[in-house]
């Protein structure tokens, strides 16, 4: 159960599908239908080209640990020490997240370790894409 004091995202028309997907336990990404390029965070066109020929698709939920810090001090909704991580999704984009089911130490948090998605409810409307060390 996540601490309800955690900062809560406020979806916008351009990101609502992402949060609706998370509510169903699905991590939704967008890609350029012409080139196959996957991008994140959500927007209704391809950054850098402006093409609107895009589609939303369900990501695999597989990722690797790309980089992180371990915050030693308390923050609203968090108990230290806790890692603020960036993961690289199998599809290419990177996103900020937290790593759960894992000690929050440099020894346990090894760069490039495989991770898997854990959709985690924050409240009735928001489910956050957290990650844990991949099993098997």
């Amino acid at each position, binding site marked *: 159960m996540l601490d309800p004091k955690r900062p*809560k995202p*406020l979806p916008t028309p351009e990101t609502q599908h992402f949060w609706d997907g998370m509510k169903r336990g699905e991590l939704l990404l967008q890609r350029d239908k012409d080139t196959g390029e996957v991008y994140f*965070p959500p927007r209704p066109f391809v950054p850098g080209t402006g093409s609107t020929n895009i589609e939303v698709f369900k990501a695999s939920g597989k990722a690797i640990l790309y980089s992180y*810090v371990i*915050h030693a001090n308390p923050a609203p909704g968090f108990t230290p020490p806790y890692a*603020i991580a960036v993961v690289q999704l199998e599809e290419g984009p990177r996103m900020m997240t937290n790593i759960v089911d894992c000690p929050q130490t440099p020894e346990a948090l090894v*760069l490039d370790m495989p991770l898997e998605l854990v959709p985690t409810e924050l409240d009735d409307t928001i489910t956050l894409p957290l990650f844990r060390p991949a099993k098997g």
Partner: protein
Amino acid sequence: MLKPREIAIVGAAETTGLGKIPGMSNIQLHADSALNALKDCGLKVSDIDGIACAGESPTNLAHYLGIVPKYVDGTGVGGCSFMIHVRHAAAAISAGLCTTVLITHGESGSSRIGLNRPAPNPASLAGQFEMPYGPFGPPTMFTIPVLRYMKERGLTHEQLANVSVVQREWAAMNPRARFRDPITVEDVLNSRMIAYPFRILQCCLVTDGGGALILTSAERAKDFPTKPVYILGTGESVETPMISQMKDFTSSAAFRVAGPTAMKAAGISHADVDHLMIYDAFAHLPIYGLEDLGFCKPGEAGAFIEARNTAPGGKLPMNTNGGGLSYTHTGMYGMFALQESVRQMRGTAPAQVKGAKVSVCHGVGGMFAASGTIVFTNEA
């Protein structure tokens, strides 16, 4: 196209006090810097016909000073906003939009009196896709790419700690620096953990203070009592407001535009640079800056600093005021880096680099979000 040496800095000053200034609000710190810079070059408030500032709206500043300017720049992209203000002001004077531009910074970063620092909007992309995971201020965001850099480039914890050690050596020569006592790599690595791998001595200060610059044409600059500091080249860019979306965790795309653009406009090579300022909000910034501006090859900056190239007596004196790590850091430090470049070019710096003729001043804004670079010279 703005030509090298077309525009000069004629007035430059910091706030009278520095560090803890409980008797001044945010806007008064702007004004204190402005009045000191005007005094520095013998101008009156009414001589200013262009203004630029960040951290306060230029409307607030104009009203507070009592002027109605012809040129206004409120570019607010973090701590390098002032480098970008210098760039825009130089272009504006060159284009005839105005003649005399005042650029100010003031920030009650420590006392927080009248400070303008809005909380992140939960509907912004950062509010939706970063804030829910617990980043809490720059020490937990600016630092996120560093473990990746260390793995890919082989930078050691000792080399990262050493950045703070070398800058403390410069600070020791500066009476206005907040921290002046020598420190060792061991001291840094044993200091209080903030956000692994960063410890307190690898993070900037949080202070009150400000600074101001006054620019005019090189032609008019001859008539001022101060030694003109000429603008040779300028550059600016932005990349992303989200540290997680920085394209390359080992290099800043904004740095790679701003730095080389300024160097090219100045028509100089790296060997021509006598003095360097690289905005050091955290210990890794000088490493990224040295590499992205081409002073070192990728992965070599940690060893370059370790070999004392940027230390007192080294071939590339860097962050000679002690930097954000030891001198001062109000929140938007870029103005203080510019002030030190101007002092070095005037020959008035506490740790003066003898015979320095070219200074490169490189700033960062946000968390690798923005960048601005100015190349100065004291040769007409």
